[in-house]
Structures are given as C-alpha cells and as structure tokens.
C-alpha cells in the first residue's frame, strides 16, 4: 500500500509537471530559445554567452524593447549531448514556439540544430561552435555564426606564424574534429604562405587527456623549431601546466589557438608559462577602447567577474537580434534574415559585419603572447597583433566551392 501511494504520487507529479509546463501565453514578446551546454567543463564558456546576452537584452527591454515588444529568452541545458540538445531545440520550436534559436558550444549539436532550423525556417545563431562547416559547406539561409571558426582560427594562426622564422614544425592536438580542423587550417594556410616549412610529425591525444608530459617529452626528442598545438577547452590548462613543468615553452616556441584566453589563463594564475602564442576574438583588456572599457565595467558590475570571449558572442547575438528586427520593421522571419545579411553592429571589438553571403560574423582576431603583467594575478596577452577579418576569413569563393561539394 505504501509503495502504491508512492507510485501514484510519482505519476501525479509527472503529470502535473507536464501540465504546468504548457507554454505561458505571454502576449507579444519576441522569444529567443537558447540551447547550450551548462554542465561539465564547457559551461565555463557558455555561462558568459548567456550572461552577456541577458545583460544586453535587459537593457533593451528597459528601454521599451524592440518594435514595442519585449524580448524574452529561455535556456535549455544540452549537457553536451547531441540527442538531448536536439530534443530540447525541437521542444523550443514546437512547444515554446520561439522566434529564434541560438547557442551551443558543441559542433555536432550546432550542425543538428542548423538542420532543424532549415526545415523549420527558424533563424539559428550559432554562438560558440567552432566547426567551419556551420557557415561553410553546411550553411544555408537560416543559420548564422557569430563566433570564429576553425577556418578563421587556422588562417589567423598561419598568418601569424608565417611572420616567424620557424621551418621545422610538429603538430599536436585533441584527437577530434575540432583539433584536426584547427591543425589542418593552420598547416595548409602556412604552407601556402611559406612553402619552405616542413612537418616533422604529429601527435594526437584524447580529449580530457590527464597527463601531457609523455607527449611533450616525445615532441622534444624530435627537436622541432616550433609546435602547433591544436587543443581547446579544458585540455589547454593541463597542457600549459605540463609545458611549464617541463620548461617546454623555453625550449620550443609553440602556438596554441586558445592559449591566451581568459578561461585558460585565469585558473593558472601566475604559474602559466610565458611566451606562448595564442589567438582569440576578445580580451577584456584589449582593444583598449571606450566601448570595451564600458562593456567590461557593466559586465563586472552585474556578475563580479571579467568577461571572457563568450561574453562578446552573447552581446553580439543580442545586438544582431534587436538590430535586425529594428531594421526589418516587423517581426517576420524572412525579413529578419534579409535584415541580418550585411548588417553591422557596434561591439567592444569594433564594428562587426554579418557577411551576407555565408552568414559569418566578420570578427577580428588578436594574436598575442602570454606574459605576466602588473595589476593582474594571472597572465595576459601582450604584443597583440590584430588580424583583420578580411585577412583571415575564408573568401566567398572558397565558401562557394565548399558548398558545391
């Protein structure tokens, strides 16, 4: 009897949940649905996207919203699982009836949602997934990318490295799509820019590799001039630790795309290795412009921490959405997309244009070197070189070719 009531209570609870969850019919809002991974290691990046997005949306709403409507948004945690995320995206589209989808740091999920967006004719703004396929070969009218991707990062790394005297390279990285795409991007562009470079060998490790020392010592025994490290996310931290412990950075210069990012350098404190080359879309201390200082202050006041690169993606998403509706003059998907194409918005990194052809936001890249600096209890990037988007983004011709395939 006891158990029976337990089950009844349980079933009643499930039913109640299902019923309460009927979408609240809020009149006349613009609804944005965010699917992203808010659990596990990636959440250190995705929280910034959401928080900065919220900050900007709150400002817009306080000023009366867009076209007389408030913007509201709902989030769903994908737990870095494609099936969960895709279900959640469908739930947002079919049940919550959102006007716009955005999010995901997971490339596979971004591609899956992008396909859903194409079928459902709902705009999808990819905010952190780095796969170049999203706006490349798998691009279509309803998908936009407001983050750098592997093609951009690869080319940026190559442009930076081509200016260095290194000839003999070693490539190492995370053994998954992202790592290989970054490495290939850097290497192919580098070979075009500097035909004399030579590849000594490659090492690939699994995502979440616990100990990089054996990889580093193996690379050292090959004696390269420089190493291209194509690792991202949480593996950056232990790699830099192992590099510091073995003195790798003093023996061989290395380039690691996300080495200079705040999420990587902050946890390491002053123990991060110096002189590591890295690229990023954004630093809270660079560019040292009024817009950036203003943004950093607002973000800090709201959340009590420095904004990392994800914050710029979140801010840009909010600005694009409000700007495009404003420009379209009414809440209409096709008009929204027409307005998005070619639109330029202001941001802490300067004006950013949404390229009309492939729906890729043309973000500048900053290449710098890690260094200790006064006033910070962690390393920052110095000697920053700005790589303009026109210089590093794949050309429209290249995109067209990729889509023909």
């Amino acid at each position, binding site marked *: 009897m006891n158990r029976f009531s337990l089950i009844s209570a349980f079933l009643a609870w499930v039913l109640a949940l299902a019923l309460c969850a009927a979408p609240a019919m809020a009149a006349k809002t613009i609804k944005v649905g965010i699917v992203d991974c808010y659990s596990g290691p990636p959440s250190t990046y995705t929280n910034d996207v959401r928080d900065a997005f919220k900050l900007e949306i709150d400002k817009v709403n306080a000023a009366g919203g867009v076209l007389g409507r408030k913007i509201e948004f709902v989030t769903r945690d994908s737990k870095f699982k494609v099936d969960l995320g895709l279900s959640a995206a469908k739930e947002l589209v079919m049940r919550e009836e959102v006007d716009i989808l955005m999010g995901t740091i997971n490339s596979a999920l971004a591609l899956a949602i992008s396909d859903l967006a194409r079928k459902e004719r709902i705009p999808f703004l990819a905010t952190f997934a780095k796969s170049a396929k999203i706006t490349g070969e798998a691009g279509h009218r309803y998908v936009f990318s407001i983050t750098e991707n592997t093609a951009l990062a690869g080319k940026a790394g190559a442009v930076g490295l081509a200016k260095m005297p290194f000839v003999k390279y070693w490539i190492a990285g995370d053994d998954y799509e992202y790592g290989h795409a970054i490495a290939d991007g850097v290497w192919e562009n580098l070979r075009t820019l500097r035909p004399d470079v030579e590849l000594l060998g490659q090492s690939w490790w699994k995502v*979440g590799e616990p100990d990089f*020392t054996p990889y580093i010592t193996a690379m050292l*025994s090959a004696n390269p001039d420089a190493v291209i490290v194509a690792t991202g996310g949480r593996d950056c*931290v232990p790699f830099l630790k192992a590099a510091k*412990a073995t003195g790798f950075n003093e023996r061989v210069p290395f380039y690691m795309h996300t080495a200079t990012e705040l999420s990587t350098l902050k946890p390491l404190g002053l123990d991060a290795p110096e002189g590591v080359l890295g690229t990023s879309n954004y630093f809270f201390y660079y560019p040292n412009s009024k817009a950036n200082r203003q943004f950093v202050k607002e973000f800090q006041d709201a959340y009590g921490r420095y904004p990392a690169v994800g914050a710029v993606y979140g801010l840009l998403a909010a600005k694009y959405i409000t700007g495009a509706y404003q420009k379209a003059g009414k809440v209409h998907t096709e008009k929204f997309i027409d307005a998005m194409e070619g639109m330029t918005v202001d941001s802490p990194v300067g004006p950013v244009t949404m390229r009309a052809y492939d729906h890729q936001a043309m973000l500048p890249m900053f290449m710098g070197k890690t260094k200790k600096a006064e006033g910070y209890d962690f390393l920052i990037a110095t000697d920053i070189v700005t790589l303009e988007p026109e210089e590093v983004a794949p050309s429209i011709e290249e995109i067209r070719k990729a889509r023909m395939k």
Partner: protein
Amino acid sequence: MDFASNITAAALFQQVLVGLSRTTILFIVSSGLSLVLGVLRIPNVAHGSLYMIGAFLTYTIAAAVGPGAFGFWIALVLAPLGVALLSFAAERGLFCHLYEREHLMLLLFTFSMTLVFNDLVKLIWGSDYRSFTAPGFLQGSFDVFGLPFPRYNLFLLLIGPLVAFGLWFLTNRTKIGKIARAAAVDREMVGAVGINVSWIFAATFVIGCYLAGLGGALVAPTQNITQGMDHTIIIEAFLIVIIGGLGNIWGALLGALIFGLTDSLGILIWPQFAIVFPYVAVVIVLLFRPKGLLKSTW
C-alpha cells in the same frame, strides 16, 4: 610520416620514466577499485567521481590554508580523508542495506551515485576551471639525458611504491586485511566464525574510496580541476582491473604498468595513433586471458 624517426635511447628511457609516474596514479586509483570489487563485489562506477571530488577538495583546502608547501601537504592528507568520510557515510547510510542484491543492481546504484555526485560538484564548485600548483621544490624539472623530467613526476614515482607497500602491509600483515581477504573468498564462512562482516566491508569500502581520493589529490597539481575529470579515469581504471584480474591488487599494479607504459611508449613510437595503444593491449590480453592476468578473487 616519418615513422619512429625520433626514437633514441634517451627518449625511450624518458618515456619509460614518465610512463611509470602515470602508472602510479593509475595504480592508486585502480587498486582501490579492485579492492572494493574483490571484497564487496561492488563494481563501483562512482570511483571516478570520488577521484574528482578528491581533486576538488585538494584545491579548496590548499586555497583555504594559503599558498606554499604547508597548504599542499595539508591538502594531500585531508582531501583523501574527506573522500573517505563521504564514502563512509554512503556505505553506512546506503550501501550496507544492499549487499544481498545482484551485481547489476549494485552497479546501477553506484551509477546513480555518480549522477548525484557530479551534479553536487557542479552545485558546489561551479563551472570555472580550477588549478593550483605544487610547492616550489616540486615545480619545474631536471634533465635526464638532455630531456626534461618534471620534479613532480619524480615525486609520484616515490609515492607509488609507498602506496603499494602500504597496501601489501594492510592486506597481508594486519588482521583486518587478512579477514578482508578471507571475506573476499568466502563471506559466509567469515561470518560464521563470528566476525562482523558488515564492518569489514565498511572498512574495505572506505579504504578503496580513500585511494580514489588520494589519486585525485595527487593529480590535482598537474591538472585542470573540472567537472568531467571522472570520465576518462573510470574507464581506464575498470580496464586495468579487468586485465589484472578482478579483485587482485597486484593485478591492478600489473594492469596499470601495461596501461601506463604502452601509453607513453606508444606516444613516442607512433604519436599519431598513440591513443589506441593501451586499448589494443587490453584487447590482446583479454583475447588470451579472458579472466585477466593474475588470479581473480571470484
């Protein structure tokens, strides 16, 4: 690709050394798993989560005590004890009522603990990456035949045999160890001679989980302490226990050696596909000795 172009005696020696220090961690974690598996018959999937909690606790304690060697040592002692305490609570509160159940139920129960632990870690420590450093004298590296060998890895190389000796002493020289070994073979008999098996089980479980916490504490200075740390280690630890022989601590040592060394040597010999070496080793071992290399306790 120039295959194996950079293999020199110095490099080989270096990889063996580095592989051995990796073996230490693998041994510590998987021997705990093996102990619990052998005596209690619990395939403890939550072992990886306890390892992760050990690392997080180390970070928190070291940060609370303050920088320097003192904080490190305190954390190294306290964090595994914290994990042991947690596991003690779990054993007395939950597990001890379930020993009669099937293995599959126990496995699922530990899996549900993993789910709870992982979300608790997220609740308590949030999503930021955490990192802390070993005290000064364990930082940096020294040269072995011209290649750098991190001091911390040397420290691990010293800890490994110490833990192995401790385990040997515990299982062979102490009364509780002897009873636990007997209980692993025939728990009814041990109960019949008037020994409280329940408390032996509790002690074994706590020691096993302590080892998970110790592993987590020891890797903390070299790692990014973050959610998801548990995923890789748990699969590796299970594979090691399987190839070593379920419940056999020396099997865990042998398995860890095979795993650690194929890993580090694979990285030197064929870096592009190094990832698969340990797994291939596991499959080969199991094809020829499906029940593991050493005699299992069940």
